[in-house]
């Protein structure tokens, strides 16, 4: 029994030590990155921020900082990519919204209006975590009022029940829709200064149109080094994979807080 106790205490001690050391490394890299950014050494800042992100604990602010670094390097495509990634975590951050608007203004291609399902624009304003807390509160409220009504049936409890039922349904639909949007998000950003979209997955195919850095496209299937992209309803074709980076890669989809 004593041995087991010693083992448990030792395990907790070592584990907490490892966690602290890892957090120290993250903090150190973060400070280094911020210093490099302030000095104008944006590539070092990017490397350090990337190191923290690769440690498996990305935050919206880290993606935002990465976006800033790429913008300072005149890489609008990469800046948009990282700002869009930050939007998954901190969509209501005023700094992020300001910078993203500024960078979007510098994209050469004119954005064409797309039709999306009605809830999408509203849901874009909320992160999945805020929707989760919303559904948690509604869930507690809904089942709580049901329990109350087992013992106390009155007019106020009836109207509270009706109100909470509506909220509970809204929260459930919102959370499910947001989850679905993230899971099926196939948007990619053009990171090359220019990419030519062709009629087929080959250099010899007809040039259809060209897209410029920072433009967001819908990505579909891929064949070899080519990916089928859709810019707007009537503009789709094949572009080189190396020119496009997905906002949410499959690897990131696993790491996203959903």
């Amino acid at each position, binding site marked *: 029994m004593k041995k087991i106790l010693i083992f448990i205490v030792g395990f907790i001690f070592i584990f907490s030590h490892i966690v602290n050391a890892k957090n120290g490394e993250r903090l150190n890299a973060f400070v280094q990155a911020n210093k490099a950014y302030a000095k104008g050494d944006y590539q070092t800042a990017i490397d350090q921020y990337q190191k923290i992100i690769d440690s498996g604990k990305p935050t919206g602010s880290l993606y935002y900082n990465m976006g*800033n670094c790429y913008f300072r390097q005149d890489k609008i495509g990469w800046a948009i990519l990282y700002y869009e990634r930050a939007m998954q975590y901190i969509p209501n951050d005023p700094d992020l919204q300001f910078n993203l608007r500024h960078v979007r203004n510098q994209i050469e291609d004119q954005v064409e209006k797309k039709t999306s399902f009605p809830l999408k624009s509203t849901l874009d304003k909320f992160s999945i*975590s805020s929707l989760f807390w919303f559904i948690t509160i509604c869930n507690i409220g809904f089942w709580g009022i049901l*329990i109350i009504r087992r013992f106390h049936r009155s007019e106020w409890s009836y109207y509270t029940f009706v109100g909470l039922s509506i909220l509970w349904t809204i929260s459930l639909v919102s959370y499910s829709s947001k989850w679905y949007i993230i899971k099926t998000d196939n948007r990619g950003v053009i990171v090359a200064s220019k990419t030519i979209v062709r009629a087929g997955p080959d250099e010899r195919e007809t040039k259809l149109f060209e897209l410029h850095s920072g433009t967001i496209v819908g990505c579909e299937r891929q064949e070899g080094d080519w990916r089928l992209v859709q810019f707007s309803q009537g503009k789709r074709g094949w572009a080189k994979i190396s020119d496009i980076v997905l906002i949410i890669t499959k690897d990131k989809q696993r790491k996203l807080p959903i």
Partner: protein
Amino acid sequence: MKRIYLHISFILVIFLLLPVTNINANTGLTIQLDRTEISMSDSIQMTIKVSGTQSAVRPRVGGLQNFRVQSGGTSSNFSMVNGQVSSSIDQTYYLYPKRTGKFTIGPAEVNINGKTYRSNHVSVVVKNQPSDISQQSHKPVFITASLSNSKAYIGQTVFYKVKFYYSISVRDLGIVLPESNGFRLKQLEKHLEYTSNVKGKQYKVIEINHVLSTEKTGTFNIDPTMMKMNILERQKSSNRFSMFGNFFTNARPHSVQTQAVKLTILPLPDANRPSDFTGLVGNFSIQAQLDPKKIPSGESATLSLQISGQGNVQLMPDINIPEMKHIKLYSDQPVISINETPSGFTGQKSMKWALVPQKEGEYNIGPFSLSFFDPKTEKYKTISTSKMNLTVTPGKKVAVTTIPSQINSSLPQVKKEVKFFQRDILPVHDHADALTLSIFQQMASWHKLIIFLFPPFIYLVVLLLFFRKTRLKLEKLAAKKAFSKLTKQLNTTDTEKNIPEMLKAFNQFFNDRLQLEGGTLTPDEVQNILTLKGISNELALETKSLLINLEAAVYTGQSDQDVNKLKNSISELGKKLDKGIKG
């Protein structure tokens, strides 16, 4: 039909009335040129507009000795808006230059009804034909690109001019501009179309002007511009006698491109830069006006400032007026107008203030200055308005009453739109929270599932715990109400088919009162259960015999007892049983 006649007569009446209306009210003469800079092989379209007349006039135009003039026809315009009639005659001429240089055309003079009217005058620059045009004169289609200045200062307006020459039929024209490499090209709204003579060959020309803007200094290599088109060719028929042989045309895709051009953007010099310089590059003027110059105290005078000029007019600054003692200032929204001209952007910015002096006396207004960089002289210039005097005489004495100071402070202030000087991104998030993971991020999926399922689980537990208790409560309630239910049923029983109903109600009473599952008990079972529930043997026996009597009456259809009497005995027995049954 009647309505059509009415319409026709209305139009006739309008035309009959026309001579009465004063159409000569705004008689005037203007000269307009489609371009102000041409080469020796080009032609200019000159339009002389005589407004306020419908009669043919022949204006005399000065300064045409350097041009060969060809008439291009006359067109007359007539319009009536809100009863206001206006008319004009446009006379078009094509001018072919005889020599290079800068020439002034005009003014034109015309005599209408004994009165001589004079027009404005316009300047035109005639240059030699660029060598790249002459070199390509053997081609049916070619394109040239040129810059208005090969060297410019940052902020200076530079035009990138693309001229497309064609002497054959073309269609589906598409221009592919060079890729941005630190600069932006914006096409001006208007493009020009005219004819040009290149080495004796007549070409149609489409001239497209672009404004080149950049925020960087250095030398830029502007890549070639490409023009894509379909050239229309007559189809050659194999049958030489075919009447349709040369009728149909083929469209052959073709493209031409310009040569690359070089542009050097110089930084603005640091030396002698005025402190109030805001980045304005070009040639500007500033004017100020005060109206009226003498006012009684408490009344207002209007101060107008107008900046006008040519250059990067969008940067024309807002002039700030320093606070003046005893004068309240109310500013108006500035009005800015920008025009595209072949020689650059021109614009005007008008600002107005209402000056309300609070005290009599002499006030000095201004001077107001404006600084800009003049690329022609390559120097900064600061221009100022002259100083103005505002004389404030004593106002009318009003025998009233002190105005509370709040009233002045609550006067509506003219709001000013907040504008960006420049745009840039906000800094990085360098606070420690930037690394903090949210609780949501720290939770695993199964944590979230538990959080979600916990409330319904609690509800389920509560439901299970209280289900039995609730059921027992309900059964007790039903037992308590069993006798009153029986009495109610007996009272509402129909007299014709009363005995089966009575038996049914009596059985129901037993089920409810004894908290049984349901179904019909035999008289013997009833006796046993009643004995077990603490009912005396006599009462149990009495109940049994009543049940036997009821069943016999139901199954045989005969009864030796009166229905009402039976009803009463059931009621009385029920009352005794209700009291006697324990639990």
